[in-house]
């Protein structure tokens, strides 16, 4: 009864559980305790940093001379954009380049690029949404088609295209290669977004920290809170990247072993039926 239940309910074993050795299925990759601990610590630090940023940003820092309390979005919006543009899409571009480069070619870089893009897309959406929320009371509009905003939206669309491309059925190497080219092409938009406020007349203000003189135009507790926000959101990115990468490894394992798993399941079902069939026939007779 117990054996029967375990074979019928275990349609797809959890990736972290082991599979019976006589099924011929490769064991799922299991996260080492050290990696698990690293992921856990980074997650905790990210949470603490984010909570501290929100607390400082909302209750401790003073209102701005011009914007008043509207300035408080500065502790989130630029940090979110920093993660999306420079960390996530930057890492995706570097990883894609390392995949395309023959000496460093490995599906590791492809997985890292894919994970980075996916997290970057989340942060890109957050960039547009938080900017829009900030724009309405300050600029007076939710959205304008200036160069900075438009190019950021284009960036999002291109990386959504990257994610869609990865869903097209193909051999892992083919998918990795075409994805890498698309990631590199899309990443060209990152410097365009960065310099758009210098190259063209935009409604969006210039850079506060990463400006031409690298002299932050923000002071005191406001500056420290902004910095903490950057660090906290960077930690959030690293944590999300680690988790997404791990999921990517498990997804690849599942894709590689899908057929073997299905066969193993069918065999176990068959074994269960053959065990039961004489009893059943006897009962019917």
């Amino acid at each position, binding site marked *: 009864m117990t054996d029967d239940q375990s074979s019928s309910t275990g349609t797809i074993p959890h990736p972290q559980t082991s599979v019976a050795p006589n099924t011929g299925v490769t064991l799922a990759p299991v996260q080492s305790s050290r990696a698990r601990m690293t992921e856990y610590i980074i997650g905790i630090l990210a949470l603490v940093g984010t909570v501290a940023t929100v607390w400082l940003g909302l209750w401790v820092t003073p209102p701005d001379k011009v914007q008043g309390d509207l300035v408080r979005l500065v502790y989130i919006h630029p940090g979110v954009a920093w993660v999306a543009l420079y960390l996530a899409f930057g890492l995706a571009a570097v990883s894609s*380049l390392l995949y395309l480069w023959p000496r460093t070619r490995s599906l590791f870089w492809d997985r890292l690029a894919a994970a980075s893009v996916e997290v970057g897309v989340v942060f890109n959406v957050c960039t547009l949404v938080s900017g829009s929320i900030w724009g309405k009371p300050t600029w007076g509009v939710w959205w304008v088609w200036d160069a900075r905003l438009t190019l950021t939206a284009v960036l999002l669309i291109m990386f959504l295209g990257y994610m869609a491309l990865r869903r097209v059925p193909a051999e892992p190497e083919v998918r990795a290669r075409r994805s890498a080219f698309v990631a*590199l092409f899309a990443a060209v938009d990152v410097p365009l977004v960065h310099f758009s406020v210098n190259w063209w007349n935009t409604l969006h203000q210039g850079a*506060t920290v990463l400006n031409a003189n690298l002299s932050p135009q923000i002071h005191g507790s406001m500056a420290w809170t902004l910095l903490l926000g950057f660090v906290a959101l960077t930690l959030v990115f690293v944590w999300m990247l680690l988790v997404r990468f791990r999921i990517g490894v498990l997804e690849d394992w599942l894709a590689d072993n899908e057929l073997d798993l299905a066969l193993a399941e069918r065999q176990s079902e068959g074994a269960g039926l053959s065990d039961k069939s004489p009893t059943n026939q006897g009962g019917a007779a």
Partner: protein
Amino acid sequence: MTTAPPATPSTGGGDTNAGPPLTGGASVPARRRGHTARYVVVGLVLVGALAFVVAKGLGSALDFYLPADQAVAQKATLGTKTFNLEGVVAPGSIRSTPGGVDFAVTAGTTRLAVHNTGSPPQLFQADIPVIAVGHFDGDHFASDQILVKHSSTYKAEHPTRVTAPNGSSR
């Protein structure tokens, strides 16, 4: 890097005297890898060129506004065409009207009167850069929308104010 030290300095054309190295059958995947690397380099150059063309070629097409001094200089060309005008709100020029607000913007030495219909955003004030959406109407600019273009500088409203442990500030 360390496995293939250059036999000759890379400045001249002395790279053909040794002939192709006899690497046997292993040269096929190596050649394919070399081709891929070349494609990557060519691709990057093309993408870089595309970025340059986009940045330079589109030029002012991506400009969201025209500063007031440039707009006044191009007044004859602009005619009554609607565009986005940018300038700093002149101190003492803001006057509420039944339909909106009148004010003047400055850019360099240029000063231009703006008649706006509708209420401006909450941050609208003297000495702040704004963008007015409208057109020239005689000697002034008639707009129906104002956008506030705030700066990227952030300063505390009361920099010397301190917060006491009980939460009150002075």
